[in-house]
């Protein structure tokens, strides 16, 4: 008997180069944000002498663990501006990167279960429209038309009293987003270096001049941190303190089902968000575990509560099974808005604090972070998200304001 020869390995989407001893820009973290930053440094600013250092494997952190929801219906002007910029970039990225990562604009419903929810939802929909974000308020019967499997009966514990709806919102295949950005950044000359952990920072006075890694010393003109849950651990090695707390955030999927769920449903009040992936699994997320944690796992009672909420909202899910649960580490700021900008160390920039909502912002985080690193000045979109706001008091308080399930 002769075994059939194994097929050739498909073409790799990027090189795996050895790190050089020096780069113009070093980005720490090859998740979505780090990759998007490298891509826009090359594409928008012509800076291609760039390395993206990743301690694990490419897009293996929160980029592999999120629930892939993309939306821009945030309350405050600063947030709406940057998330809407992200959404507009999402709309053109598949063609620009020549990679169909299955961006599906199936809309998002943010449910209201209390009179307060209704008032906040209507206010947010109106604020969104003034900011050019597509949003509308739906009454329960309209909600049922958008998502027929949703239980809108007034006889439930937390009845659906209405919802905001953003039709242009949706989901995308997260892994493919990362691979699309990685492939293009690599083509443009960026070195993507996996298995390379930053263990320290080289400084010349107040200026960063490089990093120490487990694969040797790498000099750099500028360094950008995009390390999500580990941002404060990393920044501390550079002598910078960040106002973030790292929490576990869990999500789960069911087995595969026929298409039953046509949109994305989020409920801040009962704390669950649900969509159905292209393959057919139901994808659900909840709020963060309350305690600080770096373990990439959380407590089971959080999942139980999330399931209870999901089954009440979607009675048809009662006989589905949890196939897999997992946790990521999210870095949460005091105002639930991100930090994108300079640090007290010259040449060291930070993109962190996205908490539970970083995936949807991937292109805009990269766009504005690349601008900040390339020019030394924030882009108008990320200027309000500077670290200094915690001293000036100019917070962008999205806790609960933006249908954010924190």
């Amino acid at each position, binding site marked *: 008997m002769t075994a059939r020869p194994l097929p050739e390995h498909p073409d790799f989407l990027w090189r795996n180069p050895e790190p050089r001893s020096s780069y113009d820009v070093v980005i720490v973290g090859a998740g979505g944000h780090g990759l998007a930053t490298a891509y826009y440094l090359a594409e928008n600013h012509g800076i291609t002498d760039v390395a993206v250092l990743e301690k694990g494997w490419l897009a293996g952190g929160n980029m592999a663990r999120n629930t892939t929801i993309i939306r821009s219906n945030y309350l405050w002007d600063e947030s709406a501006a940057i998330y809407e910029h992200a959404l507009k970039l999402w709309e053109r990225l598949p063609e620009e990167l020549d990679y169909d990562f299955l961006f599906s604009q199936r809309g998002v419903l943010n449910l209201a279960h209390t009179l307060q929810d209704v008032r906040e939802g209507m206010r947010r929909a109106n604020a969104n429209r003034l900011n050019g974000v597509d949003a509308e308020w739906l009454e329960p019967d309209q909600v049922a038309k958008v998502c027929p499997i949703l239980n809108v009966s007034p006889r439930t514990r937390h009845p659906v009293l209405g919802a905001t709806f953003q039709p242009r919102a949706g989901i995308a295949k997260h892994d493919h987003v990362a691979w699309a950005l990685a492939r293009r950044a690599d083509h443009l000359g960026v070195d993507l270096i996996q298995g390379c952990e930053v263990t320290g920072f080289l400084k010349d006075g107040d200026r960063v001049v490089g990093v120490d890694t487990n694969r040797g010393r790498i000099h750099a003109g500028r360094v950008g941190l995009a390390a999500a849950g580990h941002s404060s651990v990393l920044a501390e090695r550079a002598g910078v303190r960040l106002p973030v707390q790292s929490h576990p955030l869990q999500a789960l999927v069911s087995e595969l089902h026929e298409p039953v769920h046509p949109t994305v449903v989020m409920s801040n009040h009962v704390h669950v968000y649900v969509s159905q992936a292209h393959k057919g699994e139901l994808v659900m997320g909840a709020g963060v575990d*309350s305690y600080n944690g*770096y*373990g990439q796992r959380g407590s089971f009672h959080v999942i139980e509560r999330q399931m209870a909420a999901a089954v009440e909202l979607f009675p048809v899910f009662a006989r589905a099974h949890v196939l897999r649960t997992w946790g990521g580490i999210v870095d949460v700021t005091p105002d639930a808005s991100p930090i994108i900008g300079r640090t007290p160390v010259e040449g060291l920039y930070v993109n962190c604090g996205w908490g539970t909502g970083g995936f949807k912002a991937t292109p805009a985080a990269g766009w504005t972070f690349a601008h900040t690193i390339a020019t030394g000045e924030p882009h108008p979109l990320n200027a309000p998200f500077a670290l200094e706001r*915690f001293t000036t008091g100019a917070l962008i308080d999205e806790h609960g304001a933006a249908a954010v399930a924190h």
Partner: protein
Amino acid sequence: MLLITCPWCGPRDETEYHYGGQAHVPHPETPADLTDEQWAAYVFYRDNPKGPFAERWMHGTGCRRWFNVLRDTATHEVLTTYRLDEPRPGGTR
């Protein structure tokens, strides 16, 4: 699910407790004298270590008292618990 030992009630499930963040953060003695930077540090900045962390928990469905927990944030292991009027065990920060 964490198993946390309340100094008064003994070991109970995590669901009986409420989390209170970093322990040993004293209110400034003279708040009016603080600079904006110092005030920001008190209000918004907390330690976020990967490893042992001294934090506050409250036994909400039990004695309703606050106490401190030394817990490893990387492994989630509860190292010890102690009363609010006791110093952090082991002398580590």
